[in-house]
């Protein structure tokens, strides 16, 4: 473990003024990370005032501070302590901002939302292989996936719904949704391969 990381851990595990000072410094660090994330995404949230975004950054830093202090023993020193701590604040801020961005918006789950992509949407410039693959993919999405797999795939990959927003709307977790997405993708890949379609050239 590098010296700076070791110093952070020692101070945060201490007691009295040294610990208080370290916690205050850590909160400053996390607030910086949360503000950084707000700044990166500000353009996607033009309806929000600066004061609301600063409140969001402070709430994110507060929650990240609790998470970091609770997980201090999980830090293995495989990275810098500051990089490890930053990720908690970035996640807190990102989740809040994504939810705000979708507040009041309907999450598209119906096949209609991907018709434009998966139908005859291939441009004249696309090669025959791409058009054939798109057509087969559309049929496979309809025929091979369960309704839940189809909803998750459409929402996340075509409609651009953030996975944590979808998890909140469907009362599930991000991990469970990603597993559904992963299973759906594997099923589609297997089906297309069984049909003799070469997907490697387009999708690896």
């Amino acid at each position: 473990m590098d010296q700076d990381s070791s110093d952070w851990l020692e101070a945060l595990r201490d007691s009295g003024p040294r610990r208080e000072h370290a916690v205050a410094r850590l909160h400053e660090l996390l607030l910086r990370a949360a503000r950084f994330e707000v700044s990166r995404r500000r353009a996607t949230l033009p309806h929000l005032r600066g004061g609301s975004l600063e409140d969001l950054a402070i709430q994110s830093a507060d929650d990240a501070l609790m998470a970091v202090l609770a997980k201090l023993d999980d830090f293995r020193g495989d990275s810098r302590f500051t990089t490890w701590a930053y990720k908690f604040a970035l996640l807190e801020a990102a989740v809040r901002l994504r939810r705000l961005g979708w507040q009041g918006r309907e999450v598209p789950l119906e096949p209609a939302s991907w018709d434009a992509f998966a139908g005859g949407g291939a441009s004249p410039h696309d090669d025959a292989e791409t058009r054939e693959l798109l057509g087969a993919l559309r049929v496979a999405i309809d025929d091979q996936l369960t309704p839940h797999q189809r909803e998750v795939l459409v929402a996340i990959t075509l409609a651009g719904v953030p996975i944590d927003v979808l998890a909140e709307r469907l009362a599930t977790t991000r991990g469970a949704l990603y597993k559904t997405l992963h299973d759906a993708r594997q099923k589609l890949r297997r089906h297309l391969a069984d049909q003799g379609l070469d997907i490697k050239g387009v999708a690896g």
Partner: protein
Amino acid sequence: MTEERDTIRALLGPAGPELTCERCFEELDRYVDSELAGRDPDREIPGMGAHLEGCPACREEHESLLALARES
């Protein structure tokens, strides 16, 4: 790369084995510091790169952490 090819790639996701979102979050700091140190993060953490390719939310978080850690 056409929009249609991007759509197919998004629908089918990465070809190889990949981490879960939870494991991705656990390893994100190590992956980023490995990148910044000029090492080979995909060899150190197999399946991470594939997950970042397939999961838009984790990809965004990776981009943010990389940018922030680079400034620090």
